[in-house]
């Protein structure tokens, strides 16, 4: 049977046009909340158009009308069957003090794994430098780290001029953007079933461990702490959280211990990935400022004790923020079953 297209279109057109107008309004005003009557009408129009599409697909191969109806049904389907929040409004305060720490805590095991991988890298880098100091250029291929720590400390402490004068803001911006790029890459490499993320975390650990052992071995522990702590206590956890996000992505891809489909697993974590990487971005902006404006100034300009104390204060605040912020102190309401 071939459908009478003209009659079909003439009969259906008023409903399709009305549905199209409602969809256009919904798409233009995402915050729009329709009253119940309108919602019912919207649903009826969707069902009517979907039925028309089914009829057309069964009885006619006319592509133009079918494509038009498919387009309408597809748009209405997305609006009707979507159960997730619309997320049009962003509340930065709530996001930062509630959503971010709650998300972090929800996936804290991935964070612990991220820490463990970095610590393994630290141990490897530290041991490698301890056993073979000549391996420095291989482990830390950065010119400013290759210098003898004692010599560097002596130079820094004697420096009469501010070598960053006139470039501090620029240096800070470069640090922020570079570290954020590295963090995003650490997250994105979760798509390699976590292999890329693990390599990034381990390599960061290797450099950190090698530098630390190099300075400690040279008797410059105080300088090292004064140099790294003000920005490092924020920057290193930020990279660890990026690793946490990457591992989370990898877990979702691997899907061990769950029967949910890949699509469902990835859908469940996409919001958390965006939240974690957003938090990492905020942390790295702070760390960039501190590294450019505080960490690069040493004794006698700023006493090491002050810098170390500042680092400890930051670390405690960060710990409290991640562990406590957004935690619901009220006991959960009892359910009817209880």
């Amino acid at each position, binding site marked *: 049977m071939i459908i009478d297209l003209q009659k079909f279109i003439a009969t259906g057109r008023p409903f399709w046009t009305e549905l199209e107008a409602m969809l256009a309004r919904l798409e233009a005003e995402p915050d729009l909340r329709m009253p119940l009557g309108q919602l019912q009408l919207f649903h009826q129009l969707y069902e009517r158009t979907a039925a028309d599409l089914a009829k057309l697909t069964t009885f006619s191969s006319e592509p133009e009308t079918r494509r038009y109806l498919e387009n309408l049904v597809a748009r209405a389907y997305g609006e009707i069957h979507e159960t997730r929040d619309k997320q049009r409004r962003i509340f930065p305060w709530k996001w930062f003090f509630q959503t971010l720490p709650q998300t972090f805590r929800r996936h804290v095991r991935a964070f612990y794994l991220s820490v463990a991988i970095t610590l393994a890298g630290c141990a490897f880098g530290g041991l490698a430098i301890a056993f073979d100091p000549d391996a420095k250029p291989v482990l830390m291929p950065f010119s400013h780290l290759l210098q003898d720590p004692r010599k560097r400390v002596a130079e820094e402490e004697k420096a009469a001029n501010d070598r960053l004068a006139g470039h501090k803001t620029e240096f800070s*911006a470069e640090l922020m953007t570079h570290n954020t790029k590295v963090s995003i890459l650490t997250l994105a490499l979760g798509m390699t079933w976590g292999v890329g993320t693990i390599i990034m975390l381990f390599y960061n650990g290797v450099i950190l461990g090698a530098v630390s052992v190099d300075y400690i071995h040279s008797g410059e522990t105080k300088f090292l702490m004064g140099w790294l702590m003000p920005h490092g206590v924020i920057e290193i956890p930020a990279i660890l959280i990026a690793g946490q996000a990457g591992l989370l992505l990898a877990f979702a891809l691997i899907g061990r211990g769950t029967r949910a489909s890949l699509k469902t697993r990835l859908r469940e974590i996409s919001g958390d990935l965006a939240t974690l990487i957003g938090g990492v971005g905020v942390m790295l902006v702070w760390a960039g400022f501190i590294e450019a404006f505080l960490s690069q100034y040493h004794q006698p300009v700023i006493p090491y004790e002050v810098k170390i104390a500042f680092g400890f204060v930051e670390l405690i605040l960060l710990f409290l923020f991640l562990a406590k912020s957004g935690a619901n102190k009220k006991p959960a309401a009892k359910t009817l079953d209880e």
Partner: protein
Amino acid sequence: MKTSTLFIRTPEGIVFSQLLAGPVTRFFAWFIDQLCIGAAMSLLGSLLDLLGMVSLNFAVALNVIAYFIVGIGYGIFFEWTWRGQTVGKKLFRLRVVDVDGMRLQFNQIVVRNLLRFVDELPVFYFVGGLTCWLNSKCQRLGDIAANTIVIRAPRIAEPDLDQLLAGKFNSLRQFPHLAARLRQNVSPMEANTALQALLRRNEFDPVARVELFGELAAHFRGKVEFPAEAMDGVADEQFVRNVVDVIYRTHAENAAGKAAVTAVEAWPAGV
């Protein structure tokens, strides 16, 4: 299996399709987006240069940050505000949508854009392009992680067959029994081929158009033999048009016929 169309079945049992965009079209759209980012950066750079007269250090810092934010934020901003489209995608009529046909979420946009970092490795989106080429839904890694697909979204207007079929004299309708036999003998696929040929008739080269309608007319003439008076002076293209009209306008004709009969019966006798 790789396909150019994704079919989505709703809980009501209705199936609708989404035309998937291929890697080449997506690459062109990306290229346009890169040009837009470059233009935006150059404009911003010029403005920030003015700031350099006050503080060069601050201007350079802002430049670095602006380049980073525009580079990452361009896709996120446009795909969110333009419902899955950037300038390049708009130009090539592409759109990012949820893989299940649901409403696109901000998180999905963020994830698919951040995963460009791995898709663009080592150069020119090699990883992303390769994944897109191998993936059945033409998704790059970012799309897989975010549960999104990129579809072709041609401009779709309300269908209008009136212009094509109505208001023309159709010599085949003078022989209703033969017209009914024609409707019976023609398959939906054949009918659609004729309809498509008519819808696209102006896109053909003149010689090809004559040849195509000649072949179609010969094919449909073989289905039912109409008397000579129905065929005299009817060009091949007109014949195909008449065939399509007969096939797609059965009930309308019947309704019109019944209305005419009713009108004649209602007319007072002897007037």
